[in-house]
C-alpha cells in the first residue's frame, strides 16, 4: 500500500515507530496530487513548500525524541471557504479570486497547532451553493471512482482529494449536506458536527444558522481524531458551545450492544435508489447482528425540510453575501457611472448564476410582502422539524438514513435544473435544520462500482455515539479499505 493511501492513524504509528518521516509522507501525497490533479481538479491552490516546511519541523521534533500529537506531520487540505492567513481564499468565486485573508479561521489555527502540514485549498461549489462542485468559478472536480461523475458538493474538492489520496484528511463545511453527500459519493467518512461544536469563525458564512465545519477522512478513527483537533469553544463565535472537550476516540470501541437504533422510514421511501436502500438495510442488519436494538421511526416533517431549508438558507445567504460590494475587498466591476451601478455591476459580474439566484430568492423571501409566508413560516416549520427529530431521538440513541437517495450522478446531469440539484439535500438538510450531528460512512457500492453512504444521526453533542456505531459497522464491513482506481485519459490506472 502506498503511503498516500494510508489513514492518518496508520501513518501516525509509522511516524512514532520511525518507519517513515513526515517529509516522506508529505512528498508522497504531493506527488500523488501532482498526478491526480491532472484528472480530478480537487485543488484551487497548492502550498507544497509550506507543507514541507511543517513536515520538516515535525521530523526534527521526532528526531529529538519528543511526543507528537495524532495528526502531527500528516498532510491535510482545507476547503476554500475557510480562511487561511496569507493564502488565497476564494470560495471558488470570481468575487474573491484574489482575496488573501490576513487571519486564520479558528479551525485552521487548530490544524496549525496540530502541526499538520497544509497542502492547499480545495475546490467547492461557489460560496458552498450546490451539490456537485460544478458551480465553482474555476474548475469542475471529478469523482475519483468515475471521472464522468460528480464528487458531490459543495465540499466536492475536499472529499475527492481524500478519496484519491491527495490529502490524508481534509476539512469542509456542511449547511445542508455538503460534507456528508460528497463523503458518500467519494466513499469516505464525513462528519457534520452538532451546530456549535466547531467554531465557524473564519468560515465564509453561507447560512449562519446552518453552517458547520467538519472533517473528511478515510475511516472512522481518523474522523474522531480530526474532530478532536477542531472541536472546542471559541469566544470569537457567539454560537460556539462552551463545554468540556471530549476525546472522541474513546468512544470508538465501545460497541453497539444494547444501542437503540431507529431507521427513519421517511427517507427510505419513494425516490430512493434500490441499491442504496439495500445497502442501508444491510448495514442496519450488521448493526443488529452486533447487538443493537432495531426499530423504525418517523420524521413526518421530512418532506417539508427541503422547502424550509431552501427558504431559510437563501434568506441568510442574501444578507451574508451583501458584504461583497466591491468596496473593501474582492472583485469590482470596471464599468459604472455611479456608486449604485458600481455595486450592481460588481455583484452581477462577480457572482455566478446559482449564487445570484439564491441571493435574489432570499431577498424575495425576506421582503416585507413575503416575510410572513416565506421566511417566518419556514422558521416555524424548522421548529416542527426540530421537534420531530427530538421525538425520534427520545426513543432511540441514533437514527439511520441513507446519506443520499442515489450514488454519484453524472457531471452535467443536474446542473441545469436547480430543483433537481436541490433534491440532493433531501436526506441531509433536516439534520442541519435541527442542529444535530450526523456522519456518513461507506456502506457498499452500486453495480457501477460507485460508493454508497450510510448516514447516522445523533442527539446534540452526542458525536461519541455516532462514532461508536460507525466504527462498529466499519470494522465488520471493510468498505473503508477500498480505494478508488483512478484512470487517466489513456485509460491507464494512476
Amino acid at each position: 500500500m502506498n503511503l498516500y493511501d494510508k489513514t492518518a492513524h496508520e501513518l501516525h504509528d509509522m511516524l512514532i515507530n520511525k518507519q517513515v518521516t513526515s517529509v516522506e509522507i508529505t512528498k508522497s501525497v504531493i506527488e500523488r496530487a501532482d498526478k491526480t490533479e491532472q484528472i480530478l481538479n480537487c485543488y484551487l491552490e497548492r502550498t507544497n513548500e509550506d507543507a514541507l516546511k511543517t513536515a520538516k519541523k515535525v521530523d526534527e521534533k521526532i528526531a529529538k525524541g519528543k511526543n507528537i500529537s495524532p495528526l502531527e506531520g500528516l498532510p491535510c487540505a482545507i476547503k476554500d471557504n475557510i480562511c487561511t492567513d496569507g493564502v488565497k481564499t476564494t470560495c471558488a468565486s470570481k468575487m474573491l479570486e484574489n482575496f488573501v485573508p490576513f487571519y486564520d479561521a479558528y479551525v485552521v489555527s487548530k490544524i496549525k497547532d496540530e502541526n499538520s502540514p497544509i497542502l492547499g485549498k480545495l475546490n467547492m461549489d461557489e460560496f458552498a451553493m450546490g451539490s456537485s462542485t460544478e458551480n465553482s468559478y474555476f474548475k469542475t472536480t471529478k469523482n475519483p471512482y468515475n471521472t464522468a461523475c460528480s464528487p458531490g458538493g459543495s465540499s466536492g474538492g475536499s472529499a475527492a482529494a481524500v478519496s484519491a489520496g491527495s490529502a490524508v484528511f481534509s476539512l469542509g463545511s456542511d449547511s445542508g449536506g455538503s460534507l456528508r453527500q460528497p463523503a458518500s459519493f467519494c466513499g469516505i467518512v464525513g462528519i457534520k458536527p452538532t451546530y456549535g461544536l466547531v467554531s465557524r469563525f473564519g468560515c465564509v458564512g453561507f447560512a449562519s444558522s446552518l453552517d458547520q465545519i467538519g472533517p473528511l477522512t478515510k475511516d472512522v478513527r481518523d474522523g474522531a481524531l480530526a474532530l478532536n483537533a477542531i472541536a472546542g469553544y471559541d469566544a470569537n463565535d457567539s454560537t460556539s458551545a462552551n463545554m468540556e472537550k471530549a476525546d472522541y476516540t474513546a468512544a470508538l470501541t465501545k460497541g453497539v450492544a444494547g444501542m437503540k437504533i431507529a431507521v427513519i422510514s421517511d427517507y427510505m421511501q419513494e425516490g430512493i435508489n434500490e441499491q442504496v436502500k439495500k445497502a442501508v438495510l444491510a448495514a442496519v442488519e450488521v448493526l443488529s447482528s452486533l447487538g443493537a436494538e432495531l426499530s423504525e421511526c418517523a420524521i413526518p416533517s421530512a418532506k417539508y425540510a427541503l422547502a424550509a431549508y431552501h427558504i431559510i438558507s437563501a434568506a441568510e445567504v442574501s444578507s451574508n453575501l451583501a458584504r461583497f460590494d466591491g468596496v473593501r475587498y474582492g472583485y469590482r466591476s470596471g464599468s459604472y457611472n455611479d456608486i449604485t451601478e458600481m455595486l450592481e455591476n460588481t455583484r452581477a459580474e462577480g457572482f455566478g448564476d446559482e449564487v445570484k439566484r439564491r441571493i435574489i430568492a432570499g431577498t424575495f423571501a425576506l421582503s416585507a410582502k413575503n416575510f410572513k409566508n416565506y421566511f417566518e413560516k419556514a422558521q416555524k416549520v424548522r421548529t416542527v422539524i426540530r421537534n420531530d427529530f427530538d421525538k425520534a431521538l427520545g426513543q432511540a440513541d441514533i437514527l439511520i438514513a441513507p446519506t443520499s437517495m442515489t450514488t454519484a450522478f453524472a457531471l452535467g446531469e443536474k446542473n441545469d435544473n436547480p430543483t433537481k440539484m436541490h433534491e440532493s439535500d433531501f436526506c441531509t438538510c433536516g439534520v442541519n435544520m435541527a442542529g444535530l450531528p450526523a456522519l456518513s460512512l461507506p456502506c457498499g457500492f452500486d453495480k457501477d462500482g460507485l460508493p454508497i453512504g450510510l448516514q447516522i444521526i445523533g442527539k446534540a453533542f452526542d458525536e461519541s455515539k455516532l462514532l461508536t456505531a460507525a466504527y462498529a459497522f466499519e470494522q465488520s464491513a471493510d468498505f473503508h479499505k477500498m480505494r478508488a482506481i483512478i484512470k487517466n485519459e489513456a485509460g491507464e490506472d494512476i
Partner: protein
Amino acid sequence: MKITAKEAEHAAKLAHIKIDSKQSEKLICELEVIARYADMLKDVDTSGVEPTFHGIVLQNVLRKDVVTNNYNRDDLLKNAPDSHDGCFVVPTVVE
C-alpha cells in the same frame, strides 16, 4: 404561484444585482421555485409554533469591553480594489 416581472426586478434591485430584461424572464422562473416551496409549507400546521432563529439556543454570549485590536492598516486595505490616504475609495456618493 405567479411572480410578476415587477416583483422579480424589485427583488434584484434590493439585492443590488443588475439584471437585463432577458435575465428577468429566467429570474421569474427561479423565483417561482421558492414560491412553490413557500406554497408547500402552507400544509404544515404551525399554529402556536415559535420560529427557530438559530442553530443553537444560548443566551448572553458577551465580550468584555477590552481593546484587543492588533491589526495594521496596510493589511486591512491590501485587498481593496481602490484605496487612498488610508481610506477605501468608491465612486462619488451623492446624498
